[in-house]
């Protein structure tokens, strides 16, 4: 049923990657994504690929889960690769047929772009597979804390994320109830064209909106009763702490980044 959908698809576990501090995971993920774009020849890209493959093994998440995450972007990967292949001009012609000319440079370019996209998806699904939404929110709140000085409502954003995550299953359940109630009164939600089906959604969305407002009102009162006055002076039950494994992961990552930069200089770039 629709309530089975879990946002971010967290898969609990006890692997090295699971146990990393969520802040460290976000930092490392960002670094990998940046360096995926900096790697410009086979040596540096190969090193990165090896590193990501090692991380995938360490996460102990079944490989098919990563492929599931990739399913959604196969078309995008194929499309961008094909476009690059057709439009990029170079010196060495590999293939020519009528108006289509494919250059060696274009092959490299599209190959690299495809690999980049796939790696970004793998890395970001690794983050959501191995980190609970609660940890993720806490980490984002902590990492963005410096922006408070610039007037960014960091605590409020994190609170909104938490409440949204808390109410997604509740609202899905409610949607299902309303759909069943309308079906029981003869509402036809499945047949007809796009416009007809969109119209059939109105009697579902309106009750859902009204009840959401009521919930919001109730929740605000309940939060008032529990002395919520915003982020100021709040403490946390679970305090995030960097441990030895986080330091280790950070050093490994720093080594990798330096390696990618060094290897980039050893051979000419294959991608602009």
């Amino acid at each position, binding site marked *: 049923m629709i309530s089975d959908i879990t946002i971010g698809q967290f898969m609990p576990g006890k692997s090295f990657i699971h146990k990393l501090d969520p802040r460290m995971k976000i930092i490392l993920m960002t670094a990998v994504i940046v360096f995926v774009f900096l790697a410009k020849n086979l040596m540096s890209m190969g090193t990165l690929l090896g590193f990501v493959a090692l991380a995938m093994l360490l996460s102990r998440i079944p490989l098919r889960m990563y492929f599931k995450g990739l399913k959604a972007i196969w078309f995008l990967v194929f499309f961008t690769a094909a476009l690059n292949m057709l439009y990029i001009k170079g010196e060495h012609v590999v293939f020519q047929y009528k108006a289509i000319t494919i250059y060696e440079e274009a092959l490299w370019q599209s190959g690299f772009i495809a690999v980049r996209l796939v790696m970004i998806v793998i890395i970001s699904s690794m983050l959501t597979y191995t980190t609970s939404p609660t940890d993720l929110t806490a980490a984002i709140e902590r990492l963005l804390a410096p922006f408070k000085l610039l007037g960014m409502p960091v605590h409020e954003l994190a609170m909104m994320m938490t409440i949204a995550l*808390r109410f997604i299953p509740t609202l899905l359940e409610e949607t299902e109830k309303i759909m069943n109630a309308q079906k029981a009164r003869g509402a036809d939600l499945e047949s007809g064209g796009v416009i007809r089906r969109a119209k059939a959604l109105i009697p579902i969305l309106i009750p859902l909106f009204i009840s959401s407002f009521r*919930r919001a009102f*109730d929740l605000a009162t309940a939060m008032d009763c529990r*002395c*919520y*006055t915003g982020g100021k002076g709040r403490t946390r*039950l679970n305090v995030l702490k960097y441990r030895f494994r986080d330091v280790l992961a950070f050093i490994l990552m720093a080594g990798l980044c330096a390696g990618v930069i060094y290897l980039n200089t050893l051979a000419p770039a294959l991608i602009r």
Partner: protein
Amino acid sequence: MENINITSNPSDEGGEIQISLQNVYFEYESNDDSPPKEVLHGISIDIRRGEFVALLGHNGSGKSTVAKHMNAILLPSGGKVYVAGMDTFNDSLLTEIRRTVGMVFQNPDNQLVATIVEEDVAFGPENLGVPSAEMRQIVDDALKAVGMYEYRRHAPHKLSGGQKQRVAIAGIIAMRPKCIVFDEPTAMLDPRGRQEVMEAIDKLKNELGITVVLITHYMDEAARADRVIIINDGRLLTQGKPSEVFSHIDMLREHHLDVPQATELAQYLRAAGYDIPEDVLTPEECAKAIMAAKQSE
């Protein structure tokens, strides 16, 4: 504090007064030009430390409005409310008032904030700035008090209604309040959930010594209280021990209120000529009274 009305309070043998509503009027402001609607017409209630008070009244009698005055969610348009001597009009005391009197509402789904049970229970203490080192103990104790400790890592939406409501209660206990006001906490629950929640409430009163104000329309729940207050049409109709109040069956009927089933049965039996006392409240008492009546025949 001036002019506390003790004479209207039959249970003056108890401890100090924790919540005091003094001649409270309340009106809702309407959106259009029509005159504001007055829901409370001068109500005075004192709640004493350690009491278990049930607040009864039919729909629209103003009982929920009374409850919302007890921790400054609503402020009276006339009269005064004191919580442990603190005036609810005083903005600077708001946090102190709300940590003294906690409140549990009808819909358990709309009170839980976090995605994990223990984090939700920690929400109140986090707001109060309790140091992280002490938090763990407070949260664990609160969850144990309502028997939800084993569920501390669960997601709230996977729990039953009664379990969610108990988590909500734990979230209030974790703020270490002196008093908890329950606004129809069992109205949306199945019989089993009701049972669980009522057991948790009994435990609060008996083991943690927390003052309990229970708003309900289940007469069987009200029968457990030390004192029953009946509100009708924004006014205090009557108050007293459950056995006294429920013995006036005709008066209650007149105001569209039920009596506990056991009391009702006892009344029918008495009317049929059996020797059954008037103050029967629980099924157990009723069964004993019937046994006694049978034996004396």
